[in-house]
């Protein structure tokens, strides 16, 4: 997408997007509430990880690794808190902290505006996110967990597709320069 590049003195700059006040908070709260309530009525929607998609989107858009990882941590810890006492605090927190950091680091280096790039990134981030959670379960909580299965790949594809559409909607929350 051409509009995100600014050419100055022969260098390529990637634009840092700003959002309307409260947009990040609102998106995060809505994602968490959706994640907690939607599967009660539509069980198949539990395959989506909306809080992760929101973490990735704002990480890619704001392109600041520090705020990206902090946003991931806050969303992850809130998801832990809303997941019941069987999920220890820090389980989703660690996974989403890493994803927030990776998304904002990659966002600062690559064009992440094209839908195909977004699909590939969300797919990869979902697999990494699940990998971190399996690692935590196996190493820290000593619980058996399989690394990879068909369900993971289907879930990654569904989340990547949903993320591509969701990101187009979230683009509308950006403040024009």
């Amino acid at each position: 997408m051409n509009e995100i590049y600014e050419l100055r003195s022969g260098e390529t700059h990637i634009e840092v997007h700003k959002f309307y006040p409260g947009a990040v908070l609102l998106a995060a709260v809505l994602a968490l509430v959706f994640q907690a309530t939607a599967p009660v009525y539509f069980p198949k929607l539990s395959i989506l990880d909306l809080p992760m998609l929101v973490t990735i989107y704002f990480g890619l858009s704001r392109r600041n690794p520090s705020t990206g990882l902090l946003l991931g941590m806050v969303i992850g810890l809130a998801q832990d808190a809303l997941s019941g006492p069987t999920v220890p605090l820090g389980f989703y927190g660690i996974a989403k902290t890493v994803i927030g950091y990776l998304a904002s680091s990659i966002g600062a280096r690559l064009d992440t505006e094209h839908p195909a790039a977004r699909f590939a990134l969300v797919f990869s981030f979902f697999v990494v996110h699940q990998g971190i959670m399996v690692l935590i379960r196996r190493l820290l909580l000593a619980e058996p967990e399989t690394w990879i299965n068909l369900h993971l790949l289907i879930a990654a594809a569904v989340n990547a597709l949903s993320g591509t559409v969701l990101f187009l909607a979230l683009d509308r929350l950006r403040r024009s320069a």
Partner: protein
Amino acid sequence: MVAIPSKHRSLTLLAGVLIAQLLLLAVQVKRDSRGRLLRVWAISAAYPFERSGAWGFGKVRGVWTHYFALRDAERENETLRVENDALKLTISQLQGRAAEADRLAALLSFKRAHEKVPMVGGRVIAASAGTASRTVEIDRGERDGIRRNMAVITPDGAVGKVIEVYRDTAQVLLLTDKEGGAGAMLVDSRTQGVVGGTGDPMMQMKFVANEDNVSVGEQIVTSGMDKIFPRDIPIGKVEEVKPGNTFKQIRVQPAAKLDRLETVIVLLTQAPVDFNTELRNPQAPGSRAEATAAAEKP
């Protein structure tokens, strides 16, 4: 003070945040505590949103199920469509209310049939915010007399137990969660064991010796040995039996519809509850009207 180069600042922050969360995890594992304070804050903050979300999604599903599903049939009657749409929308709303009234009537009838057993009906307002656990949140809490480790059932069978209680809400660990389970007994052979979750929709019955006879389709009920569930509440039926090393591998289909719970009953006691098939499908005149009236109370 040692100055951190700006390009390493975010890496340092990442390391710090990860170490802090790893320590948080370690403390919870070591002390078997689950950070109740943070959970109370999060649940209290999310409660109004979850209630609104549950209401909104309930409406959306009602319209989806009863309106959009009928749209294919409408194509043959284009001329009548506008008029029909308005009528169907009204019908869909009435059907949604009727379905809800049926569910509430089932609960009310169940409650009436067991007047001596103290119990509280509750509505499921949220599920676990992730796939790592199978829990649901209900709109009943400490103020309604709910306490930890109380049994949760539906008129179809056992659901799980209360694992955390807040002022207005409580979290229920479903039998299908990896940490969920109940003392169980095979109805025909009276063999006892433990039914537990695997994280999947199906459950597993453990500790039944290879020598014991178990047949596919056999009913499983609670044994009462776990001091949570009263005896003889249906848990499910045997779906598959395979011999194992010492114990049989038995897959169990839950009796209650654990993947689509909307209303549940919390037993305030461990007193026995008589499960009668007729009570699970009540069609008693008047019960729906009373249930609807009960549902409309604030």
